[in-house]
């Protein structure tokens, strides 16, 4: 009998554009598991299904299990097999383990070093466990992947800094106010980028959020979505002193906040810093405001530059991360090979049932 085959099969953002990924997205994982139930050679299976990737991590009694998974998946998605083969990722053995390590670490993510994927991999593993479709091999590979991801995140700069303009703005506020639970934020305008920044502040626990815009209806919509207050646009100058952070992203043709109005508000709160985030084009806030004491003004270019610097810093860490992960994948693979050499009955299913199919009711 041949030794078990650890594999990963799937499609990711690297080779599958958005419109293809839309067609590949799994609607029902449990339905696919049902489809795979008759595949006797499939010993273990975990499915990672995110907006940027659909990946099947499995252990087959031999290499034919990979083909069976591909056939069942393409059939369920009504996706042409030949087309899938052009864009797919298919790795086996140590390379499959290394791929999972890189995915869990955020190295394979569209947004390099992002943290969300780690939780998604954990969720995928938890679902597979609930379905009873993990065994000795996948359990070990996933556990090692989590350890490896934590290690590179702790010991390299792969997750350092933020790489989105909205989060850079929030980080700047944290550099000034520390804990944002005391920070009051005013959002001027209802543009897409302003809305994203407002959401980022809300998610980081800003003490108070207010939204104002010439377009009251849109502002009201954003305010209610974020649990924020609405303030009249015309009163913005008078209200400035009540806020610690002002995010402006209107489409006004001229500045809507002058240096003089900022200076006047600072007289009412001289000891407390003010962070002005100008995300508008043309700019909403007079640049002379940056010269005021305790006022920190950042425009779109400043934020983009910081985000780019952070991204470059992360990129510079990729090679080091890959070396770390490769060492761990090598170590894991040596261990797995040893266990494969152990008596076959310890890992095969004598009754021919397929644990990878799991329970059809699983999510």
């Amino acid at each position: 009998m041949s030794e078990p085959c650890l594999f990963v099969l799937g499609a990711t953002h690297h080779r599958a554009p958005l419109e293809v990924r839309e067609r590949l997205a799994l609607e029902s994982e449990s339905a696919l598991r049902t489809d795979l139930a008759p595949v006797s050679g499939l010993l273990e299976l975990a499915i990672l299904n995110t907006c940027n990737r659909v990946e099947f991590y499995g252990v087959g009694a031999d290499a034919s299990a990979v083909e069976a998974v591909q056939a069942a998946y393409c059939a369920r998605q009504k996706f042409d097999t030949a087309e899938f083969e052009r864009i797919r990722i298919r790795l086996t053995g140590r390379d499959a383990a290394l791929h999972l390590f890189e995915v869990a670490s955020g190295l394979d993510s569209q947004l390099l070093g992002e943290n969300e994927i780690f939780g998604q991999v954990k969720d995928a593993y938890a679902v597979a466990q609930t379905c009873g479709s993990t065994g000795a091999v996948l359990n070990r590979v996933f556990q090692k992947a989590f350890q490896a991801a934590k290690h590179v995140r702790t010991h390299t700069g792969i997750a350092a800094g933020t790489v989105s303009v909205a989060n850079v703005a929030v980080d700047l506020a944290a550099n000034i106010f520390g804990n944002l639970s005391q920070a009051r934020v005013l959002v001027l305008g209802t543009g897409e980028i302003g809305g994203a920044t407002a959401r980022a502040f809300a998610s980081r626990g800003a003490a108070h959020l207010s939204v104002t815009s010439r377009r009251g209806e849109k502002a009201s919509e954003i305010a209610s979505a974020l649990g924020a207050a609405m303030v009249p646009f015309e009163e913005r100058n008078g209200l400035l002193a009540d806020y610690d952070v002002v995010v402006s992203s209107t489409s006004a043709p001229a500045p809507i906040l002058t240096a003089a109005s900022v200076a006047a508000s600072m007289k009412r709160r001289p000891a407390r810093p003010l962070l002005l985030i100008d995300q508008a084009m043309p700019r909403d806030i007079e640049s002379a405001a940056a010269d005021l004491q305790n006022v920190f003004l950042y425009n779109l270019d400043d934020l983009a530059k910081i985000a780019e610097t952070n991204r470059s810093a992360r990129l510079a860490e990729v090679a080091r991360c890959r070396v770390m992960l490769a060492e761990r994948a090598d170590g894991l693979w040596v261990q797995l090979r040893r266990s494969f050499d152990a008596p076959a009955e310890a890992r095969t299913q004598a009754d021919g049932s397929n644990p990878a199919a799991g329970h059809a009711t699983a999510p």
Partner: protein
Amino acid sequence: MLADVTDRQWLWCAAGFYTAGLVLGTVSLLRRKRASGLLISCAILIGYLLQWVGLGIRGHATGGCPLGNRFEIVQFTAWSAITLYLVVGVTFRSSLLGYFTSCLGAALTLVSLSIPEWDAVLRTHIFGGNPWIELHAALAIFSYGVFGLLALTSALFLLRHFSLKSKHVGGWYSFLPSILDLDHIEVRLLGTGLALLTLALLFGSVYWSRDTATVGHAKLAATIAVWVAAVLAFSLRAMGRLLARRFAWTCLALFAAALLSLQAVDQSRHPGAVASERTAP
């Protein structure tokens, strides 16, 4: 065997640990990594304990708080700053403050140990057996230690301010605490230093009012000048007229003034003090 170790040898060991903290922090910063707060704090703590032993032996030999010459005063100032850091610094949650504290500890202890002239004369019983004067002196020098920590915090504030205004927030600037936190710490440290100095001057004034001739004019003027400067800085900050960068620079200047005033303090001695040349510094 430990009984044979001299006070200066203990103090050299202490300086070594402060320097170790400084080296650890510098290496971490050069590698753009967050300095290990635990390691630096351990180095500072061990250095602090060794310094305590060294100053204790010196205090036993001099028959009171070891403030008899410039070497002892500078050592005590460093010890005071580090005492405060160990008591309250941890709550600041800033590994960089630990790093800067180890810088201050290493600088003050190494400089004082490296200049034999500062420790050439060993004065004993400098307080004439008066515990209130001893308390006055200890509190005053302790308040200078607080101003030392204040100066470090102000330096951190200026770095953070520069990073935010110049829009360089990455690299090791990212290890700095927030500007508002630093500002709050500055105000608290200035208030603490001022309170301690005020208490010290109150105790001292009782003694001075009994016999004005025992305190030199230079010492009196220098100490009062430092106190007035601290009162002014604190009042102007409370009124919102001395803020941000200017406040930080003022705090740095205050510590510099406190250090300079030690010259005058060192020259004014209790008439009952006994001075002897140290043969083996």
